[in-house]
């Protein structure tokens, strides 16, 4: 089928047979909401569609519904996920396997609509798994995988698309048969549910020590989730012929300069790498698909031959740098002979990161004498880079 990323995500959600969907429309996620509503209208959704008054309520509804033992889905973006923030902590703390699609969009102010990863990366510490996808097919496949992962580790998962790049671009997408998905993803069997015959208080107050125990238990689940994500992806590959890995790598085995990035920049980069390879440059790509839990050991392993590493972030942590760069450096610190990391912050507010732009990133990374302390924004101006 020829589908936009939003539609692909909606198809993925429907194939997973959620029983409760609670959402609130927001650009650029609205088409997901509209597609699900259309199915609801024609009676083919198979879920209760709750049209709630805010994203905060949407997440509250998903948490409560999930605690009753049903599969839940929601989608949001930008200000929506910011409003949801408080409840995101509740969801992971309550260990409910909700799947959320976030379509990256810049956060106000100023008001803007285009892609920027800061909205989802701001939710880094909420205890959710995060998977960043590069195209529409991956969006569909990842939503289905996310349920399998979440319901295994009992943590919620966020599948992240990019506003307008993936959300509104149309691509050929293979939509799997419902029976195959049902085989891969059996009905949700909760370990515990709300039971009126055994009344209990959920999310009660705990002691300091109990709190620590809960947080440590969640951390263990997060750490364990890495292998689960890999195993689910492998099994999905066996069944459906598409496998993505926690890191999606391209021509990086013998690469001297490796670009690390996430989302759609990763697919543009493949073209730039092919061009550079034709010119004899040993360059490659590591696209980080799984951001939480951060696959530290896998990242270190994938970069063990790299002489230099470039990172492109379509996000910025003010006062620091791009979040992927920061996380990468933290991972590499465990390696004694770690390669220098050159941090680029590009494409903020949805500006295009083109193949020529990516070629320039490789060029600069090769040329630079020292690793700049602060991230590089202006790759066209050599003076700004201190040449």
């Amino acid at each position, binding site marked *: 089928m020829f589908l936009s990323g939003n539609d692909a995500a909606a198809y993925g959600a429907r194939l997973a047979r959620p029983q409760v969907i609670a959402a609130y429309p927001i650009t650029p996620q609205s088409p997901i909401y509209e597609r699900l509503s259309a199915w609801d209208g024609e009676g083919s959704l198979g879920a209760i569609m709750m049209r709630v008054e805010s994203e905060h309520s949407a997440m509250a509804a998903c948490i409560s519904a999930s605690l009753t033992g049903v599969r839940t889905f929601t989608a949001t973006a930008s200000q929506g996920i910011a409003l949801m923030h408080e409840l995101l902590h509740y969801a992971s703390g309550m260990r409910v396997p909700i799947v959320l699609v976030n379509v990256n969009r810049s956060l106000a102010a100023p008001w803007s609509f285009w892609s920027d990863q800061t909205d989802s990366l701001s939710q880094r510490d909420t205890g959710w798994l995060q998977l960043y996808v590069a195209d529409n097919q991956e969006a569909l496949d990842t939503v289905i995988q996310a349920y399998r992962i979440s319901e295994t580790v*009992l943590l919620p998962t966020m599948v992240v698309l990019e506003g307008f790049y993936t959300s509104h671009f149309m691509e050929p997408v293979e939509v799997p048969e419902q029976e195959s998905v049902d085989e891969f993803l059996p009905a949700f069997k909760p370990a*515990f549910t709300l039971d009126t015959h055994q009344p209990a*208080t959920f*999310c009660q*107050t705990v002691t300091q020590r109990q709190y620590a125990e809960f947080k440590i238990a969640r951390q263990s689940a997060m750490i364990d989730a890495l*292998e*689960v994500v890999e195993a689910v992806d492998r099994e999905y590959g066996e069944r459906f012929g598409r496998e993505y890995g926690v890191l999606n790598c391209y021509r990086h085995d013998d690469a001297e300069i490796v670009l690390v990035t996430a989302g759609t920049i990763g697919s543009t980069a493949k073209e730039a790498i092919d061009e550079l390879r034709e010119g004899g440059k040993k360059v490659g790509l590591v696209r980080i698909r799984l951001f939480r839990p951060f696959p530290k050991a896998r990242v270190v392993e994938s970069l063990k031959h790299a002489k230099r590493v470039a990172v492109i972030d379509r996000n910025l942590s003010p006062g620091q740098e791009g979040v992927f760069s920061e996380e990468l450096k933290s991972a590499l610190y465990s390696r004694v002979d770690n390669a220098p990391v050159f941090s680029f912050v590009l494409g903020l507010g949805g500006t295009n990161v083109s193949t020529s732009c990516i070629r320039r990133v490789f060029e600069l990374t090769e040329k630079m004498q020292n690793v700049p302390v602060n991230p590089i924004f202006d790759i066209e101006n050599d003076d700004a880079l201190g040449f």
Partner: protein
Amino acid sequence: MIRSRRPVLERESPLVPMSSQTSIVFKTGSQRWERPVFANKVAPCRHACPIGVDIPSAFDLASSGDVDAALKTWLQDNPLPGVCGRVCYQPCEQACNRRDFDTALNIRSFERFLSDHGTVDVTADVQMDGRRESIAVVGSGPAGLSAAYHLARIGYHITLFEANPKLGGMMRYGIPRFRLPSPILDHEIDRILSLGVRVELGNTIGKHLGWQELESFDAVFMAVGLQRGKRIFDAGNSKARISTGVSFLANADTHPQEDLDLKTLIVGGGNVAIDVARSLLRRRGGSASGIVVICPESKEEMPALPEELREALEEGLEFVCGWAPVELHDRPGECLQVDFRPAKVLIDAESGEREIVPFGTEIQAHQTDRVIVAIGQELHLPIQLPGVTMSRGLIEVDRFGRTSHPKFFAAGDATGGKALVADAIAGGKLGALAIHCFLENRDVEGELQTLQIGKSSAFCTDQLTGSRQSRPVDLGRIASFDQINTLFFSNENRIEPERLDPRSRSRTFDEVAQTVESQSMRQEISRCFGCGLCVDCENCIDFCPDLSIVRNVKPETYDFNSDYCKGCGMCSVACPRGVIEMEQEQS
């Protein structure tokens, strides 16, 4: 394949923060500035009942199907539920909180239902003959029977004197059988006598029962009633043609038929007048023509029970209201003629005393063969009781029924109280307390204060006989309608007993009102709010956000956990019956 990594939920370390017990972390009780207080209160029905019957407890017991226990609760205060369940004027229903919601509960039908269906051995939990003292009770009407019953339950030796050949007083010789069948009365009297009460029948005071004999008792309770009908005209030569309501009713079965068929004018607007008219109607085989009831009151002001008036009208009896008799013309060989003038009735708001004031000059003359006067009764005491002060022809008593003679107590009609069964029973009960205190040398005033229900003269007998372990009740406080959370109740129709068809019933003395069927009564029982009474609904437990309501097993009470109760007041709102109230913390 994916390893199953789903953690196993362990009791000690659950994966999901959930708790089925109290949240033990913060002793949030320190945030409290108000605390819930569990206090059973008096329901307004009980407060209004002159006898102080614990009505809501009886409803609660009956709701669980235990009719015997419910009747036992009733008999704690009222030995005559079969009588009151038929003829009481229902002050309880007037006060019922349910009136503000839909309609009052049918408490009287419930009382009758208990008496018709329940069985209780009143001797089971009392110590009969536990005391030395002997007490004479003179008169076996409701006041006398009530005093005998309550005193016997405390353990005194009772001798009950009655002038008539049978016990029951006006309940037997005044209230007609179609309102109160004799077997019901017999059954209730037997139950009272089962307490070991000695009976002396045919002992008219002054004739067979002298002062000396009375004085030989440790205490005497006078409940002789008002036996003699008041007269307005000098009967002169027409004794046969002018009689009183009470004498008519006492002999309702034996009047010769030719007298009954005479054209009859009944003067009076009370129950006696109507009872005379209805009895006469029945003795005549249902023919109402030639029977006229005439009274100075308007229909609304008539002192008779509204239902009795309604039934009489249904039966086709004629009422002429607003006329007072002024003159009798009795000429030999002619019909009697009574002249009436228009009248109005002035009712004193405080005392309830009635004054009939004729006005204008218009005269309505009624020709009749016979006049039956039913305008009240008077005391007929053939002997002097030395030391017992009389006042306006009645025995003078204080509010406890004490006469001026320390050993002599009195209640009921002979002391000028309300001429209604329930009030007479209440008088007997209070008299029993006064006699008990006298014999125990205790201060009746103080005793009553501890037992008193609200500000009424009714009191709770629990402590007196020590025979019941009910939940403690704050007797001083009445549960008002605004304390009821009506969200927990739905509108339901009040059930009414079936009544015999007016045409057929006016030919017989069969009881008019029928007992309510069990199925309908169950429905009526379920309507009771249970005002101020904890019935273990446990809404408080369900609604408490801090799981701080504690259920005690023995005794079955509820408490709150002061370590955690934040004083939010949810329990007091969720209590449908106004049992839980918030009280300011003393800092």
